[in-house]
């Protein structure tokens, strides 16, 4: 594309996402104003609510943990040219793996039980993602449709298991019995209290560090290993990859497995870190936030972590805002999320071409000689 080449790298990496995300937030602000709430005070409240004190920050990072996991899951699939819409279902089924280990491994010590639970989560999440991967690689199914269907299958399967099989005896709630204490991932505030630092009690737990570790591992894997190179080649040009001796089918299945395993982090954070039991719909749409996060972060782990922090702020600050402003509900976040997906994802090309157009115009102004003739813009 001729217009894209004129864009400097820094503008491509920074300006395009910033412009598109800013547009999403401006429209969100207009909706807030239309509802009759001052968008400036709402923004202020959102920021103090998410960063104002150690409690707010703890909650923000706790939400961000979930989004890093699902964002990485969507991003790694993007790098291989696959659109995994199924992070939600993969995280949900991963919760089953956690529950099975934690409910039956009560006698184990924490240092064994927690890693086992995490491994089970990753295995279940990966299994739920590998099936669509295999169906795409070997049977030619469309991965988008299959993963959408697998989200609904996960939802019906888990509803059945929680209502009929896993429900604690005598309980009216569709949830398992509480896990043994050994299955609880230590929270950050108890660890810090152990070394003498007092912060507010929040759901933030060690899963956050695991999420950051996963982000680093994803970067190393995708950009610093041979397999990662093959993965990106398949994403960029499957025909060239096949010519180069890479099996796109194998890469597809592998990447879907990794993607599902990353999505499983939500189950680790929520089920083992916070709830200590498996409950209905604990994923709460976080898998879909992962789509927004991955698009906003341009499919790169650093971008994903930054976008997750922003969405963590939105979720935590939005909850505080909904509490203080009776006119605003947390559904507002879903709207903003949709706007981010739209502007940073679907209209990304429009923003890039628009900004490239600005860059193409600018050098002509001071220079006296005519600007080099470029192929005319690819859009009206």
């Amino acid at each position, binding site marked *: 594309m001729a217009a894209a080449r004129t864009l400097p790298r820094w503008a491509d990496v920074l300006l395009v996402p910033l412009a598109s995300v800013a547009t999403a937030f401006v429209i969100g602000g207009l909706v807030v104003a239309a509802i009759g709430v001052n968008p400036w005070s709402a923004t202020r409240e959102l920021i103090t609510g998410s960063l104002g004190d150690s409690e707010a920050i703890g909650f923000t990072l706790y939400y961000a943990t979930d989004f890093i996991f699902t964002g990485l899951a969507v991003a790694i699939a993007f790098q291989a040219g696959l659109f995994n*819409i199924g992070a939600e279902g993969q995280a949900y089924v991963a919760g089953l793996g956690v529950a099975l280990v934690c409910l039956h491994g009560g006698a184990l010590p924490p240092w064994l039980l927690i890693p086992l639970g995490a491994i089970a989560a990753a295995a279940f999440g990966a299994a739920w993602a590998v099936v669509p991967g295999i169906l795409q690689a070997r*049977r030619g199914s469309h991965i988008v449709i299959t993963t959408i269907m697998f989200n609904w299958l996960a939802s019906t*399967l888990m509803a059945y298991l929680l209502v009929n099989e896993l429900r604690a005896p005598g309980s009216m709630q569709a949830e398992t019995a509480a896990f043994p204490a050994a299955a609880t991932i230590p929270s950050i505030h108890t660890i810090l209290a152990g070394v003498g630092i007092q912060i507010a009690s929040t759901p933030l737990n060690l899963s956050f560090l695991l999420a950051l570790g996963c982000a680093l591992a994803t970067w190393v894997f995708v950009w610093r290993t041979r397999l990662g190179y093959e993965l990106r080649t398949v994403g960029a040009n499957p025909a060239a990859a096949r010519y180069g001796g890479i099996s796109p089918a194998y890469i597809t299945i592998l990447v879907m497995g990794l993607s599902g395993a990353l999505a499983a982090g939500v189950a680790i954070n929520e089920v083992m870190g916070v709830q200590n039991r498996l409950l209905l719909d604990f994923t709460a749409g976080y898998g879909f936030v992962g789509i927004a996060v991955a698009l906003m972060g341009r499919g790169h782990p650093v971008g994903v972590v930054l976008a997750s922090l922003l969405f963590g702020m939105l979720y935590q600050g939005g909850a505080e805002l909904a509490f203080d402003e009776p006119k605003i509900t947390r559904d507002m976040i879903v709207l903003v999320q949709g706007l981010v997906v*739209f502007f940073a994802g679907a*209209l990304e*090309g429009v923003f890039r071409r628009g900004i490239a157009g600005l860059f193409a115009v600018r050098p002509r102004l001071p220079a006296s000689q005519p600007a080099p003739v470029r192929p005319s813009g690819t859009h009206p």
Partner: protein
Amino acid sequence: MNDTVAGAAFILASSLRLAVPLIFACIAGLWSERAGIFDIGLEGKMLLSAFASALAAYETGNAWAGLAAGVVASVLLGLVHGFASIDGRGNQIVSGAAVNMIAAGATATVGHAIFGEGGRTPQLDTAASRFEDIVWPGAGTAGHVPLVGPLYRDLVSGHTILTYAALLCVPLTAFALYRTRFGLRLRATGENPAAVDTAGVSVRGMRYAAVVICGILCGFAGTYLAVAQAAGFQPNMSAGKGFIALAALVFAKWRPWPALATCLLFGFLDAVSIRLQGVVVPGIGEIPVQAIQALPYLLTVILLAGFIGHAIPPRAGGIPYVKER
């Protein structure tokens, strides 16, 4: 004997009621995807039109005003997707996912801001503000006639005008797609847009037309949910019906008559799963409702994987068309 027939007629009638939004949404998706615009945003358009129609029907007290508002809202949201997919040359799956999120967020937010009930709109309690069931002549007395009586009473008579419209939109779609020049061009746009362009027909125009038709039909689907089936809007009331419609579209291999059959089948499964709740079937035991609810998704996955026939989407689907320069 007569009881069995009456029971069957009842189940079939409720299958038909549950199938109506699926038929509208599935045919809507068919128009869009046959022109090469993938649309996973059927759910979002349905939800937005359900909200708009409930709001308008409540404010005006007129169900037809509700339908108009629902259709307009759905078409506008469809044009957002259309702009991103056609002029913006963006990823149509991403855009569809965005449409779903925007609709879910916007309806609940605005609904709550207006009525303060967590997003619900007030009950539509006057007769004119809803689409009422139409009772055909003699339906009451015909119920006593063996066999055909209950079928006439429950299946033919006693539905809202939107139900008949849904059944009518299938032959109309089939005719328009396969028997008119417009339909031929539209299908060609989804298979080989370059050829359409060479013939001097605007690919852009055809695709926008398809997106608008898709929006109109999704508007009918949403209006049916809020102003005919229910009496008002609730957040997330589309509850995945847009995705079942998408599944039906794949299952029907993007053809109108099979789409109708699939939607009726999925509606039937839905009706049966409601009916079988807690019922113990002799010899099998209690059938879990979830197993029946999962069937549409499972069948679609199996079909898509080519284990029963092959579902091949329109060839140019999802690919933005760029004129060569």
